[in-house]
């Protein structure tokens, strides 16, 4: 239990769901080595960590930030620019991290110290302003960032798809550079989530919850809450930037659409709300469900639509037409928020109340 920092899922269904998701992610390269499945699995890993870091802010401290994609973007761009300009070497990867992570942390420190003293709404507005400015900056500085086109780059030899590490003859499946990259992403994401789980269950993490519950009282107990909030903001930014770096490594690309746009911010918000705020596990559940729906709902609907058409049902084939997938995705989210206001994890835990000591 120590690896979970004394905060187990506390619901049988939730435990089973988590085991299924993690097992599926662990075996994806072996069982579904196709490009689409691998991309979806990677995105789930990366977003689980990204959403978990956002949950640290929203769920545990109650502060609303709109700058989370900015930190994600900083991590992405740092890797992309470093590998683009220095060439595909490990030194470039290290340089990207050595620039991107501290930059994200420093920016978060600045935003935090400047705006977390005062009311929460001010922090939200400052993050929105800084993130918008950053988005403009990234597209303006096209000599550095590649502007709207972004930056494509080559990976170090070891991580390339063409690099066969273990040939198919040995175990019946090939392990190439792509497989290795995938497992780096998976392990890094898992480590970050477990790290965050530790932080939220530490004495520091309890103070964050206390601030969320009643900042006035937390101050009266002797906690200088602006520092707690600022550290949480820095930590979240570090994890977001790391997730961004992983994303760039996987895509071999960083651009405004994949790493900076506000639609990613919206996705993060939806995932944390659907999964369940202030639970950490909600990040994994939310990311898995959201990204699966985003990627496979269309396929599912086209199957259903054709089946309905074959059965000669009226109206249904049109309603279920794959082009309507966004409508259904939207309805799915409205329904999930309506029926599970505390998120899926909150709902599952309420169903399995922990016994009183």
């Amino acid at each position, binding site marked *: 239990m120590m690896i979970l*920092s004394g905060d187990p899922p506390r619901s049988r269904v939730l435990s089973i769901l988590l085991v299924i998701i993690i097992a599926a992610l662990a075996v994806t390269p072996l069982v579904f080595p196709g490009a689409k499945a691998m991309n979806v699995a990677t995105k789930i890993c990366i977003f689980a960590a990204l959403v978990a870091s956002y949950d640290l802010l929203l769920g545990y401290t109650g502060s609303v930030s709109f700058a989370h994609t900015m930190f994600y973007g900083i991590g992405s761009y740092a890797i992309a620019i470093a590998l683009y300009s220095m060439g595909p070497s490990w030194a470039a990867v290290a340089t990207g991290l050595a620039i991107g992570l501290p930059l994200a942390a420093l920016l978060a420190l600045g935003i935090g110290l400047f705006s977390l003293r005062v009311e929460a709404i001010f922090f939200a507005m400052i993050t929105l302003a800084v993130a918008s400015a950053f988005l403009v900056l990234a597209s303006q500085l096209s000599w550095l960032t590649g502007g709207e086109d972004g930056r494509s780059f080559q990976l170090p030899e070891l991580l390339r798809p063409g690099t066969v590490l273990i040939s198919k003859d040995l175990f019946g499946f090939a392990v190439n550079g792509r497989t290795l990259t995938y497992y780096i992403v998976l392990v890094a994401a898992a480590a970050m989530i477990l790290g965050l789980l530790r932080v939220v*269950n*530490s004495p*520091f993490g309890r*103070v964050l919850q206390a601030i969320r519950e*009643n900042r006035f009282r937390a101050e*009266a107990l002797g906690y200088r809450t602006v*520092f707690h909030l600022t550290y949480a903001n820095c930590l979240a930014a570090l994890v977001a930037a790391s997730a961004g770096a992983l994303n760039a490594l996987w895509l071999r690309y960083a651009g405004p659409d994949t790493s900076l746009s506000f639609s990613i911010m919206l996705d993060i918000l939806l995932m944390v709300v659907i999964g369940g705020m202030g639970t950490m596990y909600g990040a994994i559940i939310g990311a898995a469900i959201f990204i699966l729906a985003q990627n496979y709902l269309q396929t599912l609907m086209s199957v259903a639509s054709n089946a309905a058409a074959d059965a000669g049902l009226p109206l249904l084939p049109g309603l279920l037409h794959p082009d309507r997938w966004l409508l259904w995705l939207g309805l799915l989210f409205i329904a999930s928020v309506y029926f599970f206001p505390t998120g899926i994890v909150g709902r599952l835990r309420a169903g399995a109340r922990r016994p009183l000591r």
Partner: protein
Amino acid sequence: MKNVALHHELHMTLSLETQDLTIRFGGHVAVNGVSCRFRPGELTAIVGPNGAGKTTYFNLISGQLRASAGSILLDGQDITRLSVPLRTRAGLGRAFQLTNLFPNLSVEENVRLAIQSASGVHYDMLRPWMTRRDLIARADAILDSVALGGRRDVAATALSHGDQRKLEVALMMALEPKVFMFDEPTAGMSVDEVPVVLDLIARLKQDSSKIILLVEHKMDVVRSLADRIIVLHNGRLVADGNPAEVIASPIVQEAYLGIAPGKRTA
């Protein structure tokens, strides 16, 4: 940082003093030039009608409000400009008149947060909270002292009003402050709940190194606990002295009790 000799010296000279303490809200002067010195081993009751400025006086001392004029000295040090958390760390403890808890955390977590702060554990991110058994044990002891031991795993919001008032007091006890500020600790409590809190205050009084300030309306409580009474009226300090003297004084009869002498009831 902890110099034992220095600490000892400070301890010897523990004192709390307000000098011409004043706060204005627009044109309204809620606390008006209050100068008063509080000594260790002394329980001072602060009385006065509703709106007299008692809670505001507390808010100025513990830092929730900033003084418009005047100063506050703790152990001879000027703390008038210090932030709330730093005043708490300097030894000011406060139990609020309007219950002020962490509603969705358990009773035990509420108290443990106070103990954690008092133990200087502010930024430890790496050790799981549940492994701090030392903190848990102390939280349990404090909860037992306010008869909340059986409710430790309940969310604070689920407690009855009386139990919430007790938890409010427990949070201050857990801070182990030098100065205890009780703001109507028994208000709204049922008759059978009151003694737990009064016993607690009486026990506190036995430690002659502490300063205790108590805002209380029930005159029988004041009479039995207080070593000294000060009276606030319209933000001004209008009487200060030993209980019998102050209660009998004409100004209190008129200003606070609002009745003619002789018709006083407890």
